[in-house]
């Protein structure tokens, strides 16, 4: 047994650091944001712990096949006899080790969620973990079949098909939907939050590098779900301010027709009075009637 343990220990001591230093920096989702760095670190920690477990199984399997093969002389009968009895030390060791790993990862996961302000996941409308940054840029993500659009409330509430973010800035994504459930997955930002109608699902991250971002819907949402993607970018603060102000100006004529900025849009609200639904439409009805806007009483 000690020969097996020695082989396992040597392999683990060699392969774990090799993985961490050679492969670890390239593990998704990269390091574009604080959430991405955190998630990359989490994946690496999980792998560093999983690799020795995997090696233990593989080493035992390989050792058994080679050393205890039936054709090898002197190998005891596998069924019956003292060799078939349980080994208390191994059993206790296995249970204790498994328990320590699982409970340790439980604590590790909780700490990571708290210290990274939700680790890029949607925290619902009342996040309990928030960034410590003094200023946080709010960006609203509006999902609709089948496109994400983005509103910038601190720039007059304009809405754009483009997702542009400033570098080195804490961002609060307010994710909502105008129809069915979608999922906002900005891969390089390591942001993933469900987009539910009438719900403000908040996810935080802090940008650390400029570059391009791939956004996909990650909730099967209908015919064009597969085409519900776009590319965003993280740019310098200066470039972002120039873009935001220029877009605010260019879209001003349409912004005044949008409903006032809100974190959610009530489906049966009045079209021009604050909602995204026409007056005569009940979005939950199977018999919607579209036509001219009825006169308001």
């Amino acid at each position, binding site marked *: 047994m000690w020969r097996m343990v020695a082989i396992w220990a040597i392999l683990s001591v060699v392969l774990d650091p090799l993985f961490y230093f050679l492969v670890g920096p390239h593990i998704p989702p990269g390091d574009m944001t604080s959430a991405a760095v955190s998630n990359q670190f989490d994946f690496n920690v999980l792998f560093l712990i999983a690799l020795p477990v995997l090696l233990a199984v593989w080493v035992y399997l390989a050792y058994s096949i080679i050393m205890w093969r039936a054709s090898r002389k002197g190998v005891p009968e596998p069924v019956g006899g003292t060799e078939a009895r349980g080994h208390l030390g191994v059993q206790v060791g296995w249970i204790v080790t498994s328990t320590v790993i699982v409970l340790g990862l439980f604590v590790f996961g909780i700490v990571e969620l708290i210290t990274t302000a939700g680790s890029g996941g949607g925290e619902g409308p009342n996040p309990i973990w928030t960034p410590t940054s003094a200023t946080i840029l709010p960006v609203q993500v*509006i999902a609709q079949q089948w496109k994400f659009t983005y509103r910038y409330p601190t720039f007059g509430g304009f809405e754009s098909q483009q997702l542009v973010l400033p570098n080195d800035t804490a961002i609060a994504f307010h994710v909502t939907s105008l129809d*069915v459930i979608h999922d906002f997955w900005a891969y390089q930002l390591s942001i993933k939050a469900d987009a539910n109608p009438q719900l403000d699902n908040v996810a935080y991250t802090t940008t650390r590098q400029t570059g391009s971002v791939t956004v996909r819907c990650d909730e099967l949402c209908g*015919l064009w779900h597969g085409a519900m993607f776009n590319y965003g970018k993280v740019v310098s603060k200066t470039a972002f301010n120039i873009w935001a102000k220029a877009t605010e100006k260019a879209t001003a004529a349409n912004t005044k027709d949008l409903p006032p900025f809100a974190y959610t849009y009530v489906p049966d609200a009045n079209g021009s009075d604050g909602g*995204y639904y026409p007056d005569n439409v009940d979005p*939950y009805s199977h018999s*919607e009637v*579209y036509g001219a806007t009825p006169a308001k009483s």
Partner: protein
Amino acid sequence: MSFGGRLSVVLGLFIVAAGFAVWGVVGFLLPQPPTVDFTSAQPAGAPVNLTVQTVGSIGNGYGNHPTWVSYLVKNPQGQWIHSTIWKVPAHTRINLTVEQFDSGSPLRNQQWGRVQGTIGNVMTLNGKPISVYNSNTGNGVGHTFSIPTLGISVPLVGVNPNANNICSQAPCSSPSSVVNIIRTSFVTSGPGNYPWQCFVPCGLGFLFGNGGPMSTVGYMGGFLDVEA
């Protein structure tokens, strides 16, 4: 049961299951509308004139869903075709004309009232250039022609629903039916198959208005098949 008998039962069930799977896949793939080819209609590099119409009900002459809202396209020979798969050349100007015969309503998201991604981000509505249409006014917006992956979206302003000559079923024609003529131009990108859709949930009788014709290729969505 003998081994041979059990094997026969298992093989029989497997064949039945495989048959259902093949039937389902083929059934899903076959009913695609025909591709209307605009790549050979004019000299290479010349603009393509793409004329479509939107109708409130496709009528009895075009398949199994006569009450569904739909697009029709005029092929290079001048015939109205019930198809939403259009083959066009890459890096070429497309002069789009939409004959909008359907009525409108306020948009679920007024963002789609803005003309986006076309040349100059502008369109003409019955000859009048506009870049933003407030769907909460007038007759609202009936449909949009949008290619989301290319950032193109054009609001198709609705006709007066109270007009006594509103077209009831396709193919519609003016001046016998009230119509809005929308014109705009855009330049195709590189080769690819780009889905296009309507952003008005106009699938009457379906949850959120996005089922039925909104979720069936050939009615309110299709592909812009851009060829090199």
